């Protein structure tokens, strides 16, 4: 057991090192930008995994926190000097706003049953979208605005390394968070909320904590996203962002943290290549249809996601007897 754990740690470390070396050996600008994008969405998808995978909360409004980060950073870099100091400060401001809003929204809505909660998050998120569209003096609405990023990020490689660093840091922090005693209670809430209550855990507190952590991390992803484009408009607050995070988490494997990273990679690459195929055949101009098909197939055949399925196969190989017994039991039950 321990050795598999060690091996996976070494593999992860090797991958991170390889990714860190990548921009030094390759001069492909496209790949540097694409990977940066993947890392940013990995952070967003991991934050969504805290909600969906670990606490069992379905939110349709996660984009609002991503958007808060994006706007906080974009507005501050635009209005003040585009320096590293302001950049860091803007991330902190975005995270604080997202933390406060997710706390308030969570406190007011998480008492509700899951589907009502999902609907309400969609409504609140819609509210922020409308606000951003109407408050043109601040956001320039749907047209958005460009802004200058700190000088040092003109070098795409520097930005790539910064985002990779953030990804690793967020992964380690969230890993520790979900493996803490508090994280175990989050999983208990997902498994059986009523039972968790009867053990003496105030489940509402845990759901609010999960939603604040997810909101704050999503805001970081938003800040990084805005600077990577040096442009922001209301698209950062739309349902598409939430759905992307949802898809990445589900395809990669919920409740695994690594899964959403892989999911983000798969989806970003699929979007990149499928849209690129349009040159080959005009049918690929409608690449989104293929994307939909791939998604449906993935959910049908890999409901546990990529990482969940791989984990299950490993577990099956290790515990052949248990499987035999449990399937026998199922047979009897039928």
């Amino acid at each position, binding site marked *: 057991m321990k050795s598999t754990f060690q091996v996976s740690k070494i593999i992860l470390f090797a991958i991170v090192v390889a990714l860190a070396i990548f921009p030094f050996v390759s001069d492909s600008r496209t790949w540097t930008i694409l990977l940066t994008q993947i890392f940013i969405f990995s952070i967003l998808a991991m934050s969504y995994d805290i909600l969906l995978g670990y606490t069992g909360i379905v939110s349709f409004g996660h984009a609002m926190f991503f958007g808060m980060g994006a706007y906080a950073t974009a507005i501050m870099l635009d209005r003040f000097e585009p320096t590293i100091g302001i950049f860091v400060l803007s991330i902190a401001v975005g995270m604080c706003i997202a933390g406060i809003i997710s706390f308030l929204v969570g406190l007011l809505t998480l008492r509700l049953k899951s589907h009502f909660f999902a609907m309400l998050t969609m409504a609140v998120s819609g509210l922020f979208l409308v606000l951003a569209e109407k408050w043109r003096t601040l956001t320039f609405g749907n047209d958005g605005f460009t802004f200058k990023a700190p000088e040092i990020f003109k070098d795409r490689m520097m930005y790539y390394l910064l985002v990779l660093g953030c990804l690793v840091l967020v992964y380690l922090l969230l890993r520790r968070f979900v493996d803490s005693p508090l994280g175990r209670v989050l999983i208990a809430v997902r*498994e*059986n909320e009523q*039972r968790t209550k*009867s*053990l003496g855990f105030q489940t509402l507190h845990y759901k609010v904590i999960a939603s604040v952590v997810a909101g704050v991390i999503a805001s970081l992803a938003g800040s990084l996203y805005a600077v990577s484009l040096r442009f922001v408009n209301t698209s950062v607050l739309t349902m598409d962002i939430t759905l992307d995070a949802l898809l990445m988490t589900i395809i990669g494997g919920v409740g695994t943290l690594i899964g959403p990273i892989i999911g983000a990679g798969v989806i970003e690459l699929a979007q990149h290549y499928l849209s690129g195929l349009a040159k080959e055949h005009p049918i690929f101009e409608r690449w989104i249809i293929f994307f939909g098909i791939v998604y449906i197939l993935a959910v049908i055949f890999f409901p546990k996601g990529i990482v969940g399925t791989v984990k299950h196969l490993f577990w099956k190989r290790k515990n052949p007897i248990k499987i035999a017994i449990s399937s026998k*039991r199922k047979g009897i039950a039928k």
Partner: protein
Amino acid sequence: MEPILRTENLTIKFGGQTAVDNVNFEVPEKHFKSIIGPNGAGKTTFFNLISGELKATSGDVFFRGESLSGKSSVARTRKGIGRSFQITNVFPNLTVIENVRLAVQSKEKIRYQFFRHFASYKDLHIQAERLLEIVLLTSKANAFATQLSHGEKRKLEIAMLLALDTEVLLLDEPTAGMSLEEVPAILDVIKQIKQTGERTILLIEHKMDMIMDLSDSIMVLFNGRLLADGTPKEIMDNETVQHAYLGGLYDEHLA
């Protein structure tokens, strides 16, 4: 002496149906009380009212003289009323040891610690292992709860209840649906808890020999009302009880 648990005119209505009707009862500290009654008598509902899963329409529950009205199930567990469920209610996709460890974690008030790895709380693990030994589930510690047999799940329920280390234990048909071979193990566990003399236990059961063997007193519910309350002997000799409930069932059980 103030009873540890007391109800006053406890009533709950579901629409027109009164499931628990004006029940006044009390149980002294470290007492073993069984609750019997035919199916639908309101026994589990009565437990749900005590543990806070349901809100009473009128009346109140008192724990050490303090009213529990308006207190959630979370607050009641923390005060010292723990319960097991009739329909097994565990965390299916967690391992057996993890199920128990969560309960131990709650008892140890390790609720919001978020930075140390849970495995570094070795004491939780040791306590959980000891509880699994008591209920004879050590060999299944690393199996997922969903893989357990019905009887094993009941044992897990009891381990989780014991882990909470509450003063009052509400046991809702701990042997329900168990095969005959599995019953003695559970019975032994309950006997052991009783022998330590540290807990107040309320037990809902249908197995009369078990009840006669264990109980200090028995209360009988019938159609939501308290029909009788007394020592096992008094209950056995009570004609109303025999007529309403024990007659058929007791004979059937002996046969």
